[in-house]
């Protein structure tokens, strides 16, 4: 069983469209995250949710809106996509906010905006 699963794996879309990426974890972890990895492989956190509650919201455009219907799911919705949004988006989870037990990452969603 995949511990942290993301869908879709690849997403190609036109500028201006709205798209969603879904993430589910079956580890029973309390905290989930969205990270963005740019073309230079640099990783940066976007959002963190603990038990469905937003705890970190880094400086990302408000076109990006996370939604956590329950603690096992954290979805990312992106409105009015721009070329600069092209990147790989990783979902991750940890047992608790401090991450002392480590973090588990999904396989990533490669978003290409044309």
């Amino acid at each position: 069983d995949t511990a942290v699963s993301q869908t879709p794996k690849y997403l190609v879309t036109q500028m201006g469209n709205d798209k969603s990426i879904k993430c589910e974890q079956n580890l029973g972890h309390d905290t989930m995250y969205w990270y963005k990895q740019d073309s230079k492989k640099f990783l940066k956190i976007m959002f963190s949710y603990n038990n469905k509650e937003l705890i970190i919201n880094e400086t990302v455009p408000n076109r990006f809106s996370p939604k956590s219907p329950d603690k096992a799911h954290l979805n990312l919705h992106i409105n009015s996509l721009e070329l600069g949004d092209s990147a790989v988006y990783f979902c991750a989870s940890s047992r608790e906010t401090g991450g002392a037990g480590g973090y588990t990452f999904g396989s990533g969603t490669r978003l290409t905006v044309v």
Partner: protein
Amino acid sequence: ELKVEQNPLFLSMQEGKNYTIYCNYSTTSDRLYWYRQDPGKSLESLFVLLSNGAVKQEGRLMASLDTKARLSTLHITAAVHDLSATYFCAVASLDSNYQLIWGAGTKLIIKP
């Protein structure tokens, strides 16, 4: 602001050699993580280091943490081609609300 620096950023080496990747960070932390990423793949957890002097080993990889020097090392012994990947360190601290701050990654190429 917590900053994490890795060096080198690129490393090409022959099989059978030893080498070390360094990870320096700018503020107090006792949580340091090493990850491996293969091209087009996810991030695989290698080591979680949670205290000063922590040393962990898995196969040909050994990681250590010196919180006083704010330094972690990832040592590769007798490198083999399968270890070719990009290696990231990441640090979490109270200063960063325990969110992971990542190094830029070290792209390691091991030639047969």
